């Protein structure tokens, strides 16, 4: 049991390491998007401080979206996906392994550099732990929801654009509670409610998204 799960997890992490330039591109994209805002809205510290949580969250969301189409594309093209669908284990399990490897290679680096970018926007120090926590809870939800979209648009012409249209509306609640958590912490009301909602969302997405994703993969490879 779980041999497929660990085989996929190990292989995808190895592939992420071998193709680490892709990971660096995602991270560079996140950093550049955040850096664009002071140029666009002006370097007024109060203003930057006010928009910092939203900016960081939108940038993290876009960075995740940018790399989502890669999640299944290569395996679909080279036939690995068919072989995985023929494994004895339920598809939802190894889909979970793929999403986990995807999050470790794209979500986790973003979570790691987010505090540095927050300092760039002069976010108050007190908000940093909540920012990191909200991103750590929220970006896996983005990866899980995005995986369903990636599976549905697999092999379609212009799938990347369609993928963005499909999943961006689904990302809205995550964005609201993620950015809201930091603002609530800084305004003094406490971020617990937001973080609990994000945690609940993550638990729900972990339970349901792999099943939906597996069904979508079967349709895409049919």
């Amino acid at each position, binding site marked *: 049991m779980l041999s497929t799960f660990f*085989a996929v997890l190990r*292989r995808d992490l190895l592939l992420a390491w071998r193709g680490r330039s892709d990971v660096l591109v995602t991270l560079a994209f996140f950093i550049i998007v955040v850096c664009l805002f002071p140029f666009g809205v002006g370097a007024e510290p109060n203003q930057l401080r006010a928009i910092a949580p939203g900016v960081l969250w939108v940038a993290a969301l876009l960075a995740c979206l940018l790399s989502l189409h890669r999640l299944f594309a290569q395996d679909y093209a080279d036939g690995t996906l*068919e*072989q995985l669908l*023929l494994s*004895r284990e339920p598809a939802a399990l190894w889909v979970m392994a793929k999403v986990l490897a995807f999050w470790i290679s794209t979500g986790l680096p973003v979570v790691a550099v987010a505090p540095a970018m927050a300092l760039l926007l002069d976010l108050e120090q007190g908000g940093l732990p909540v920012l990191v926590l909200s991103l750590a809870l929220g970006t896996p939800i983005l990866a899980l929801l995005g995986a369903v979209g990636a599976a549905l648009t697999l092999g379609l012409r212009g799938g990347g654009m369609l993928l963005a249209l499909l999943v961006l509306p689904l990302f809205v609640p995550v964005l609201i509670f993620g950015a809201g958590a930091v603002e609530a912490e800084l305004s003094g009301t406490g971020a617990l409610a937001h973080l609990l909602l994000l945690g609940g969302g993550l638990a729900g997405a972990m339970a349901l998204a792999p099943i939906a994703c597996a069904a979508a993969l079967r349709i895409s490879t049919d």
Partner: protein
Amino acid sequence: MLEVQDLACLKGDRLLFRELAFRLQAGGLLRVAGPNGVGKTSLLRLVTGLAMPEAGEVLWRGASIRREREAFHGELLYLGHAPALNDLLTPLENLRFACAAAGDDIDEQACVDALVRIGLENQLDLPARVLSQGQRRRVGLSRLFLSASRPLWVLDEPFTALDVHAVADLASTLSEHCAAGGMVMLTTHQDAPFARPPEVLDVGAFAC
């Protein structure tokens, strides 16, 4: 053992074939024949359960493969048209992953032996992207040596891109598998030197 009843396949809005039926007993070697586009690959994908038939049923040991999916896939080896190789991994890593993903507990030495036996001893540590078409095909086929415990082999164009020597070796491997009580179902356009002539299923006879 493997029985197909009244199968119909719809591709897009075109009915490829219907009322297709055959039976494959232990030790049987079945060659799926027919011109390009008649639905040979589609038939193989229906038999493996990767695609859903428009009508009809595929039975394995008397039970529908949709109901007994896990048991059936534990006894099936399917090698499709694409060899399922990732360009960034070496042949050895690809083979080890393929076995582990399928749920077979096979150690590294057995994988090395299989790759050496199929003639890739000098390519073990090269990334798959520098391999030739024939060598890529061989990496995929090396799984045959590690899958004797799986009775049903379904192979889509296994002889493509192989040289004369490799074709003869593959044919004898397939014949041995059948002699040991296994079953092989394959598509090919070329004559291979099998130990005894395969049964032929002409998909064109069921075309619409």
